[in-house]
């Protein structure tokens, strides 16, 4: 792939969702991304208009994984422009089928890996770092397993930027690499490697990220427990907070399986706590 075109597609792919609509989803964003390629290939305005109509058909995939689709569709577009007139329809049909197949496959991987797991993983990284940063100070405000310093002068406030920066780096390094390399893989690979999708072992990445995330969640809770135990004067305080922790984590897990969202659970907790405070206090 021409390096100049690759840069252009990469930059424009950042705006893929900008034209989102309920009728054809990301079709306008897709055309915006493909436009430099189409303008380079088709010099004739009449031909370009016909191609643009084809490029305005439905397009919907995960924005990060879309680079694979852009890579392969750029190559197919070059093939269409070079093919003989009698074969054009056949290759155009192949273009449509490939587009449909690659967008579906990449959306399935991307939505699961990036929007669900990597997003959660980067959050856990931020939570874990915020725990470490806040525990290094002297005075705390207790909130669940998180402690926050009461007085800003106690710690260098700039260290509190670390969780947000780490979260952004965790997410963006991975996604930018996929966005950039996906173009190359999609362009160079054939259907035998699913246009580059099979070069990366997605299942292993998803599985390892899940395991790392689970370990980090466990570390957060353990870190909290050891620090609370070390700071508490009274053993009963440790027991009460431990029971509270176990109870609410279990409740969150059980209610998730019943279809309750975390926000609904929070609102439910407010209502129950209000009722109990009126009854008990």
């Amino acid at each position, binding site marked *: 792939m021409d390096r100049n075109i690759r840069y252009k597609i990469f930059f424009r792919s950042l*705006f893929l*969702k900008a034209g989102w609509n309920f009728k054809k989803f990301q079709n306008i*964003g897709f055309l915006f991304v493909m436009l430099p390629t189409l303008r380079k290939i088709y010099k004739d305005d009449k031909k370009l208009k016909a191609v643009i109509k084809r490029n305005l058909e439905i397009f919907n995939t995960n924005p990060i994984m879309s680079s694979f689709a852009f890579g392969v569709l750029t190559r197919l577009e070059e093939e269409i422009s070079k093919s003989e007139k009698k074969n054009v329809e056949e290759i155009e049909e192949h273009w449509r089928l490939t587009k449909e197949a690659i967008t579906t496959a990449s959306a399935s991987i991307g939505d699961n890996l990036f929007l669900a797991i990597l997003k959660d993983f980067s959050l856990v990284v931020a939570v874990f770092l915020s725990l470490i940063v806040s525990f290094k100070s002297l005075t705390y405000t207790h909130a669940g397993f998180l402690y926050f310093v009461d007085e800003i002068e106690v710690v260098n406030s700039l260290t509190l930027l670390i969780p947000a920066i780490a979260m952004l780096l965790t997410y963006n390094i991975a996604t930018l690499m996929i966005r950039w390399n996906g173009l190359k893989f999609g362009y160079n690979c054939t259907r035998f490697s699913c246009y580059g999708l099979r070069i990366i072992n997605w299942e292993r990445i998803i599985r390892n990220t899940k395991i790392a995330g689970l370990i980090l*969640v466990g570390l957060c809770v353990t870190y909290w427990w050891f620090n609370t135990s070390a700071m508490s004067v009274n053993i009963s305080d440790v027991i009460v907070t431990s029971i509270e922790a176990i109870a609410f984590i279990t409740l969150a897990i059980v209610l*998730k399986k019943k279809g309750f969202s975390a926000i609904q659970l929070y609102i439910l907790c407010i209502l129950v706590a209000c009722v109990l405070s009126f009854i008990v206090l």
Partner: protein
Amino acid sequence: MELSLILNILMLCLISAVLELDTSFIGQFQIARPVVVGTIFGLLTGNIIHGLQVGIFLELLLVDFVPVGAFVVPSGNVAATCILIMHSIYECPPHFIFPIGLLCGWGYAYVEKYIRIFYSEKHELTEKNIVNNLDTIKKWLLRNMFVNLISTFLYVVFVVFVIGKLAMLILPFVTEKINLALIFSYLIIPWIGAGRLAVNFGNNLFNGKAHG
């Protein structure tokens, strides 16, 4: 309220609206996530610890929402902005303003949905214009972004000045018992989040279907 304070608040609302563009228009770099927005706004309003706390709490409550396809999720950015600005200007307790801000973030999802419907209704005309003149595509995308920017800005301003004032009218009527219930619920959010994250990571992990 002093004019300089109003201008500062409007500036914060504008920053929030610009950051919101990241979710559906530019890049999806996650800069509109509550942890990032909370840290930025905490830094700007002078209470970075509170900003980080609100950001993490919002994230932990929003872990269930995945912005896939046509599903519009509650805006963590709008919620964090509203909570931090209202906390900063009205000096109300965070456990009181948190659920109000969260609901406002939820409400923003409906605003975004109606904006998308508005674009979709004119879609055929837009396509026609693009086919006739390719240069309109950039203008159209810029117009979309501008509409989204303005609507987010106006929504946050409305929440901060109108909903915030209404909340302040309710605050004196919040009894000690309700206050305790709100504090308790606020402090257990990390546990709810930890449970949710454990389920999300553990889901299908041990039955050989980690991708499911």
